[in-house]
């Protein structure tokens, strides 16, 4: 919900009936996307507004439709509440609230959204302070769903809001094809095939994980989003930027420098596999540095400091999820791949072979390789008592949640009364 500007000035005439948020202490307001028009005058060329962007409609947009400031609403398909989603309930700080009701209501009667449910954000497990978080996570889930079912190219980085999400490698078809060519020239096609399969698996499981969004992933994700790391693309690669900023107990310091990247790369390409860019010493390293393919399991932040290679290049030095707070589930997944990875190429990825298909299709079933998120779900449904702070415990124990203090974690098992 956007913060009421008038309240901040001390002159909100609706008082408790106001549909905007009156923050305690007059401050607050969530983070939110930037880049909106702040047309503060009602006379802005409004006939363009609905086509050009739903920005004026922010107040009433169903928060679950928010897509962040990124996707400008497309006018090519004039349908679709998704396209309107330029603004959002949760995120908003300040500024545009003059649209609120006053003139905005009058002119915006073409807004066909359901009656503004001010409390709809309560439905999503996020607090008001971090109201944006809930919608963002849902956006990601939706995107994952679409990605998986649409048959689009899987080897792509992904980002919803400025920060690229970890766990996705960026590979272009040309790079793959080049690789294939050079492999087939030297007769090692099978290696290529295996590598691709492995990559596909990782991608699949990461997508699954984000789709299913168990609380561990969710928290990890929110941490990543809210501590925006400098884009990996702007860093010299190999630096821990994407992960370095994520707070909780991550040990990715070992990430270090291009040095590991340059040497022990990936057997995918000859040492100079990068494409065109002057900065890219090698294929594998380019891939590995910003994103962590092997760490797609469990928590995304459990990025092992394995800058150098994919999991099948060399027995990787992945530390299983340093962030043990996210349950041992992730550790479990890790080690199982470890073994497979450690075996090196062509050593029979038994499970992988079992998958059979070429992988780019629309198979809906999660990979049978045992690294799916199914494994992760088991012990992270409830938090442990020790993991919850006293405030959260109080919230759980209270009869109702207090706005602004709703915990992000699930309650401990024993607090549940069935």
């Amino acid at each position: 919900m956007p913060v009421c500007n008038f309240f901040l000035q001390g002159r909100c005439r609706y008082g408790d009936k106001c549909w905007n948020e009156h923050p305690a202490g007059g401050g607050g307001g969530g983070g939110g996307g930037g880049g909106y028009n702040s047309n503060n005058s009602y006379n802005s060329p409004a006939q363009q507004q609905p086509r050009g962007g739903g920005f004026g409609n922010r107040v009433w947009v169903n928060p679950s439709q928010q897509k962040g400031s990124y996707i400008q609403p497309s006018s090519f398909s004039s349908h679709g509440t998704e396209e309107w989603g330029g603004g959002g309930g949760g995120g908003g700080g300040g500024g545009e609230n003059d649209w609120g009701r006053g003139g905005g209501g009058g002119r915006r009667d073409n807004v066909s959204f359901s009656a503004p449910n001010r409390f709809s954000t309560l439905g999503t497990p996020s607090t008001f302070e971090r109201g944006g978080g809930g919608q963002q996570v849902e956006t990601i889930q939706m995107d994952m769903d679409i990605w998986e079912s649409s048959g689009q190219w899987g080897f792509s980085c992904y980002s919803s809001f400025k920060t690229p999400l970890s766990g996705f490698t960026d590979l272009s078809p040309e790079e793959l094809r080049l690789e294939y060519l050079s492999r087939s020239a030297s007769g090692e096609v099978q290696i290529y095939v295996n590598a691709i399969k492995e990559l596909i698996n990782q991608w699949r499981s990461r997508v699954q994980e984000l789709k299913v969004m168990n609380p561990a992933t969710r928290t990890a994700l929110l941490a990543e989003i809210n501590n925006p790391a400098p884009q990996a693309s702007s860093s010299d690669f190999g630096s821990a930027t994407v992960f370095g900023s994520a707070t909780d107990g991550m040990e990715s310091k070992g990430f270090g420098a291009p040095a590991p990247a340059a040497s022990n790369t990936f057997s995918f390409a000859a040492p100079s596999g990068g494409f065109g860019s002057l900065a890219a010493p090698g294929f594998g390293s380019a891939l590995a540095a910003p994103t962590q393919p092997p760490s797609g399991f469990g928590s995304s932040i459990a990025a092992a400091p394995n800058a150098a290679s994919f999991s099948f290049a060399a027995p990787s030095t992945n530390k299983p999820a340093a962030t043990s707070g996210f349950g041992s589930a992730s550790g479990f997944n890790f080690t199982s791949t470890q073994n497979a990875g450690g075996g090196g190429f062509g050593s029979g990825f038994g499970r992988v072979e079992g998958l059979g298909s070429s992988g780019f299709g629309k198979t809906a079933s999660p990979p049978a390789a045992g690294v799916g998120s199914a494994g992760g779900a088991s012990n992270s449904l409830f938090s442990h008592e020790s993991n919850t702070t006293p405030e959260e415990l109080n919230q759980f124990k209270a009869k109702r949640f207090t706005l602004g203090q709703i915990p992000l974690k699930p309650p401990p098992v024993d607090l549940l009364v069935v």
Partner: protein
Amino acid sequence: MSLFGATSGFGSSGDRCLGNDVEVTSPPDDSISCLAFSPPLHLCFQILIMGSSFTLLPKQMHTGPVLDVCWSDDGSKVFTASCDKTAKMWDLNSNQAMQIAQHEGPIKAIHWIKDFSVSSLQFWDTRSPNPMMSLQMPERCYCADVVYPMAVVATAERGLIVYQLENQPSEFRRIDSPLKHQHRCVAIFKDKQNKPTGFALGSIEGRVAIHYINPPNPAKDNFTFKCHRSNGTNTATPQDIYAVNAISFHPVHGTLATVGSDGRFSFWDKDARTKLKTSEQLDQPITACCFNSNGNIFAYASSYDWSKGHEYYNPQKKNYIFLRNAAEELKPRNKKW
């Protein structure tokens, strides 16, 4: 001048194919990665990707797949950029090829600007063996476009850099990508005064973003649209999403054409924000497209773009290049506002 096939020349009178588009006779044996029309003469030139034996070029020019090609201003020289890390200049008059650039990695894009030829961000004077200037890019370059004095490079990890090329070329701005997925192609467009004013960026996710460099109203002027999806605008049912392989702007009208992995091409008017036309579906993805200098001919190439991995790679499948009369279909619509 015959440019392709070991045998014949320009097949404009070749066999008709589906939909009244003229098919170029004796197309290359392998996937086509780029097409370029020469400036003054309306010759179409295509390059093979893959394979070190090029039946297309009279000599074996490159030892690795060729990824990009461009013409010089006067149409007498052709520059090719290849995965064997070199760029070569082929003088058509004398039929000689000369290496002009050396990179550390495969070269993905090459463009001619006035007296310099830019290749993947090294600026070369064709006369000297050393680069005039090198600019570091943070990531692998996936696509680039140059319209003097602006150059745009889209890199891996959703990077987007704009360079200004006057005097000493330098980085002008790094832009946050308006798209969520991997960048695939980029094309610069010009405003009414023929100055480059923005670019169109295509991704693997069936989406193109139109982005102006200095728009009066960024939130309204920049937008994205979905394309190359199987279901059109109906987002209720799951749709197939295809990558946008190439974007090309009509030199006269300012409308654009996109070609995708779904084997279709589409024409769009970005000012009226409408789609002008979508083609029938070809059985192979369309990998490259370009307009000739006066905008009458639209050429597009149909071959496998590796979008489904190696399993679908069928070397026996024939590749096509089609030419289409583009004079009428790309006229812009009347503006809606």
